[in-house]
């Protein structure tokens, strides 16, 4: 059913709570001096959001006259994004560099970014897609450049801004063509129109898709729209890096899926998806996917800065997730969604350890990890090892399960080349994922690296994420079922 603006609000409570928190934070920043409160409030708000999201469940409805769809797919990403927000807030509270910033603004913008991601996951209309994407982008620019008088941060922000501006400009230019061809902005309408118009203007549609891909691809940082990621990840404060790597990537995948699957493909009788006639984006994305993982891994081999290494690895990881995206089956999408969860757990964990070490030593280079296990930092060292092995895809970790389902989908869809490229990449990736581990365990400390002191707050989260990595690696049944169940699109009104 389709609800009007007022009726929609009842289904929109989590977003409303977020918005409220944002306003409150800005006001708070004006009156209250105590900085701790802001973080606490933000945390409270995001936890509340989580609870409300869970409470709200998924009901297949269109909100706001079909601008926003609220189905189980959206529910899944709402959940994921809230969790990402919680991690980001938690890390921000524990981060030294963030403590130096304007707390109120910071958290307000952070929450608005996550609000934008919510909307990205729910968008059912090109306009809403553009708006939400821009909301996320603008806030991200600010957050990236939030470290005043930190040159790297500023530069990163500028690059992010310009790159994002161009990307989104290209995107809406492409959208305008789709609008022209389909004569509507609702995904449902587009789908209907394209399936009728048949091969008529497939080239135009294709070009339009490519242009749109520039905008969405840059959110998930897939080749060739990935160039910003390393700089931004390196320049931004670590909690923000985490938020971008985990949250906005997830949101990007949500939007990508929503647009490329329900909007311009249709579910065939055999349960597999088929691109609408004449629009052969699958091969295109297949190639992009393979190049993305390969390039990301190859580039990561060269890095000496942990954040930068993880940045490239996150590009490669996006490539893996795309494996599930391009095989055109619900199996694949389910695998992709599961992998996003896995990626959330392990990548957030890895960045968290990077932050812990940076807090203690002020360094982000791999050299700062030398002999970490032998100079008091055994716990973070072990945790980082777990996260990195998980990112590699070694069993007993959720990362392996994620890869397992991705490869399974590829094999089932008979994408053998894709699977082969995938496994070769995971072998290559081992090489750089193991480097920090080697530095931490196999190398002896030289003494000049500072000790890594324990902060219960950060260790708490780290322990939780590490535990999740292992536990989900041993027993993931419910999770994969959940991902499978969430795979119900509620296609917009034609």
């Amino acid at each position, binding site marked *: 059913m389709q609800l009007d603006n007022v009726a929609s609000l009842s289904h929109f409570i989590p977003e409303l709570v977020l918005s409220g928190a944002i306003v409150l934070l800005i006001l708070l920043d004006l009156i209250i001096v105590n900085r701790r409160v802001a973080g606490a409030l933000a945390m409270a708000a995001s936890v509340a959001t989580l609870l409300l999201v869970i409470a709200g469940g998924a009901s297949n409805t269109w909100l706001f006259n079909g601008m926003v769809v609220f189905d189980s797919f959206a529910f899944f990403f709402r959940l994921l994004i809230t969790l990402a927000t919680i991690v980001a807030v938690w890390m921000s509270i524990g981060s030294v560099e963030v403590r130096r910033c304007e707390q109120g603004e910071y958290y307000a913008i952070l929450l608005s970014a996550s609000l934008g991601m919510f909307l990205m996951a729910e968008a059912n209309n090109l306009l809403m897609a553009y708006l939400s994407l821009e909301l996320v982008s603008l806030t991200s620019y600010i957050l990236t450049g939030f470290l005043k008088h930190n040159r790297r941060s500023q530069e990163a922000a500028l690059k992010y801004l310009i790159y994002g501006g161009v990307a989104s400009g290209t995107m809406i230019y492409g959208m305008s063509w789709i609008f022209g061809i389909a004569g509507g902005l609702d995904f449902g309408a587009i789908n209907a129109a394209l399936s009728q118009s048949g091969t008529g203007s497939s080239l135009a549609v294709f070009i339009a898709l490519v*242009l749109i891909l520039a905008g969405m691809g840059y959110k998930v940082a897939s080749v*060739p*729209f990935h*160039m910003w990621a390393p700089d931004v990840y390196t320049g931004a404060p670590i909690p923000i890096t985490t938020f971008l790597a985990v949250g906005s990537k997830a949101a990007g995948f949500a939007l990508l899926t929503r647009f490329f699957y329900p909007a311009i493909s249709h579910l065939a009788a055999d349960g597999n998806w088929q691109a609408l006639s004449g629009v052969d984006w699958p091969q295109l994305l297949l190639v992009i996917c393979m190049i993305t993982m390969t390039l990301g891994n*190859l580039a990561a081999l060269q890095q000496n800065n942990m954040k930068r290494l993880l940045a490239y690895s996150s590009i490669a990881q996006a490539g893996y997730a795309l494996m599930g995206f391009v095989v055109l089956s619900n199996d694949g999408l389910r695998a992709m969604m599961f992998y996003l969860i896995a990626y959330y757990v392990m990548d957030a964990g890895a960045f968290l350890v990077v932050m812990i070490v940076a807090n203690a030593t002020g360094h982000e280079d791999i050299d700062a990890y030398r002999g970490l296990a032998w100079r008091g930092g055994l716990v973070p060292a072990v945790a980082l090892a777990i996260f990195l092995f998980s990112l590699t895809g070694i069993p007993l970790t959720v990362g392996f399960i994620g890869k397992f389902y991705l490869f399974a989908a590829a094999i089932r869809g008979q994408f053998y080349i894709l699977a082969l490229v995938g496994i070769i990449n995971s072998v290559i990736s081992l090489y750089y994922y193991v480097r920090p581990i080697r530095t931490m365990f196999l190398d002896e400390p030289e003494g000049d690296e500072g000790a890594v002191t324990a902060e219960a707050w950060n260790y708490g989260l780290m322990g939780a994420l590490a535990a999740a990595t292992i536990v989900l690696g041993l027993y993931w049944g419910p999770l994969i079922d959940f991902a499978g169940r969430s795979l119900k699109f509620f296609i917009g009104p034609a």
Partner: protein
Amino acid sequence: MENPVSVDFIRWIILLPLAGAAINLLLGPWIQRKLGKGAIALIGCGVVLAACAIAVSGFLQMVALPPGRRFMLDDLWVWMNVGGMKLDIAFWLDPLSMVMTLIVTGVGGVIHIYSTGYMHDDDSFWRFFGWLNLFTFAMLVLVLGDNLWLMFVGWEGVGLCSFALIGFWHKVLANTTAGNKAFIVNRVGDWAFVIALYTLYWGLSSVDHPTLVIREVAQWSHLLAGRPGYLGLSLVSFITLMMFIGATGKSAQIPLYVWLPDAMAGPTPVSALIHAATMVTAGIYMACRLNFLFSMAPDTMLVVATIGALTAFFAATIGIAQNDIKKVLAYSTVSQLGYMFTAVGVGAYAASVFHLMTHAFFKACLFLGAGSVIHAMGGEQDMRKMGGLRKRMPITFWTFLAATLAICGFPPFAGFMSKDEILLQAFARGHQLIWALTYAAAGLTSFYMFRQVYMTFFGEFRGTREQEHHLHESPLSMSSVLIVLGVLSVVGGGVMLPGYLADFKPLEDFLKPVFSSEFTRRLGEVPISHGSEIAFSALAVAMALAGWFVADLMYRRKVLNPETFAALFNGELYRVVLEKYYVDEIYQAVIVNPYLMLCRMAGWFDANIIDALVNLSALVVVYASWLSGLFDAYVVDGLVNLTSNVTLDFGGRVRRLQTGSINGYLYAILAGVMFILLVRAMLRV
């Protein structure tokens, strides 16, 4: 054939020496410290003599049986039972293995006793007796094993003990090298031997009798007749030929005899027991054991006879030039073994076994005599430093002389009976050439033996002064053994007299059941008139006398000067013979060195090619990542300074994966879009 008599005493013949070995090797040092060498000696000799006693009682049981039923089996437990091949740990006593067992335990026993005296001053007394017992055990397994794999266990087991005892004084590297040589050369033979066993097994299983139990093989081997084998030979020929190659290793025949002379590095009792009396005869024993197979393969038989005769002659020629008292005996052993193979080759198995037995007596006696001399000379082995010892050590001299007469084949000594039998059979079965070779070898034998006697016991002493007044007759423990063996060398031939003296051949009759397969019988009896038999004896004696005479002229009367002969062909011939025809050197150059070179090449190949390839693959990935960085830079920055950067600063280039230039990024989007359209176009066509 009827079922064998099931008995349970055979295991004790084998287990007793094993027990002795276990005690002496595991607890030896402790016993020697606490109870002294006497205890060690008691255990060492006790177990072997006890085994001998059991063997004798077994012999009495056996002769009590009717000739056709003289087969005893002692089945212990299932060894392996795989793929239809069921092998037990079981021991098989028939007349042939009976004779061998008696020789091994009897001669072995007395040599044990001799060793108590000979090794008395050695600290590793316990180790010596441990290994000697273990050897006895292994030899008995070889002899008594009821299936070929069990025989092979003993076959290599004796090789192990021989290895350990040759290198007994392991502080001298040369000894251990000799041990290695012995073991490895034997391995070459064993390699052929196991191939033979595999072939035999598959041959029999192809006729639905997959077995390697000797009596069953004997039962079914006739089914193999006329089957094609490998290398263009018939199956049986191939099998027996491979077996014979194995035998050439164990029994030191051409081309694998080279280890035996070096094996003299071991203590003399070892040389006597292992490298004269027992182990080296394993090959002959195996051939006789499997006579039913060999008899089926006339071409193999011819090879065996030829190799045997050649070895007999060839080794004898080397023997005449040696100056080391043990080396002479070593080559003489090789030569005598050649005789035995000749006998096998012409089908005279009984004669072969007969010579095996007498040879065990007199060659053991010779070695032990030599040992007694070395003992007296304080370890000196060079005959040129000896002389005139007969006054100082009479017992040694007289026993040594008796054994010498025996080996030279003077009537009525044991060697006369057995060697004559072989020569006679060879000729009678129409192998004139082989007969000629062995006949000539007989002359050489008598020459080098008497040369040895004269150089050692006659003339005046040529050693150092302290050696001279240290000279003494060996203790009773040794001399008594010499006497026993000396007597045996005299009368040992009595078990098979020449037909013209009396029709008295108990040994041959005793062995007949073993050599009764139809093919062996077909080779069978050849009628020989007493006249011709007498003629051949006369010829043989004449040849022996000739050899003695020449030696006498050269080394006692000194009317002929050996140097003049040595100087023939300006000494080349002599040097070649003295250097054993350079066979060792040739093997070194043709086989060993190339092999070592091959190994070095393999090692190099592995480290520098295979492993390099592995590392290369890793390198390729790194290089690819560098290229990808290059690609980015290329796309991003355009061609600006590309080449110069690459050439100037590789590392710097590698790290420039991400260039900072924003415009670069924007170019990248454009390039990306272009690239995508391109891909799409390609996918379209």
